[in-house]
């Protein structure tokens, strides 16, 4: 049951597409894997595509924020892309604003944002 979310490397950017209903351990595993991969590969950017994610609760929100902070310590920028409107509205109502996390509408725009930064 050692499920993992695959991490793709595209040049200096790491791309993660979350396509499953994320349970807590999987999220923590991703946090571990990503930080390891950043330091191994020297990546400067991380794109996390959550467009298929149907809900983000405070736990997953915290993991996303943590990944962003950890990556930043390792000198990489993180962009969370493709959050669905219903998920965004719910997160705001929940009181989670993910301050400090960069966001973009889709992977393309996320790439451009990383190039600019």
């Amino acid at each position: 049951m050692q499920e993992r979310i695959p991490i793709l490397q595209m040049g200096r950017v790491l791309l993660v597409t979350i396509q499953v209903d994320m349970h807590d351990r999987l999220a923590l595993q991703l946090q571990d894997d990503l930080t390891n991969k950043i330091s191994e590969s020297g990546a400067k950017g991380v794109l996390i595509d959550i467009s298929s994610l149907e809900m983000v609760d405070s736990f997953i929100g915290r993991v996303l924020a943590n990944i962003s902070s950890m990556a930043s310590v390792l000198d990489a920028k993180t962009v969370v892309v493709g959050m669905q409107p219903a998920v965004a509205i719910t997160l705001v109502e929940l009181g989670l604003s993910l301050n400090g996390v960069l966001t973009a509408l889709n992977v393309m725009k996320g790439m451009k944002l990383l190039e600019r930064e």
Partner: protein
Amino acid sequence: MSSSVLATVISNGQEDLLKEWVQQQLQAEGMRRDLIKVEELTAQSREFLQRFQGAVGSGDLLNIRSMGWSPVLESIGELSRQRGRMGFTPTETALFVLSLKAPLTRLLREAHKDDPIKFIEEITVVGELLDKLGLFTMEVFLQSREEVIIRQQEDMLELSTPVVKLWDGIVALPIIGTLDSARTSVVMESLLQRIVETGSEIAIIDITGVPTVDTLVAQHLLKTVAAARLMGADCIISGIRPQIAQTMVHLAIDLSAVTTKATLAEALKTALQRNGMKVVSSSAV
């Protein structure tokens, strides 16, 4: 009381009862001959009588929510909804069941010619029963009207929140009229949905047409801005009128995290600038 007597009375006099009842309905004040044909009415009445007789035979005359009555309730429910849609008034709809009282009374009187006490007993129960069915008719009728109202409200909400594309990557939402909670959440959703569909990174919310902004509305606006940011889009709020600006300050609403512009034109200019574009007069090129 012996439900069997009533059941027998109905089954023996069924054809007469049906004729008299339909007659009764047709003569009733406010009968909408224009909305329903005699044949249809007769068919409906016949169907109802059959189910009614079955339910009476099942025994329980005082509890119309019991199992035996469910075919009857079903039939009334269908009829009531149908009449609600066709434009019958509540009275006209309730008359269907209530006008059965007179012919039934006559049948019972004949059956109990020699026993007035028994007649009174039975007629009391039948009266109560028909009243209950009448009330049920009203309930369903009102419910179907309410469903229509809710649907219309939903339609109106959607129509009143057009999100327009101003330029590649720029959408605008001109809000006109008072914003309440229900409307704001619809507005919010359709704006965010359009941001995704058009891939727009900038959304302008224009509130020139909004007469007042209270704390709740301001909070909704701020939440929309926050949600758009989570998705990767920026919002500009334009058209804040002087008195609204004053109220906002008095209410201590903090808009410092949001870009605000006086007019929609100003907002569009800012949006274009952010996308690396500039509007110049053609003679200057």
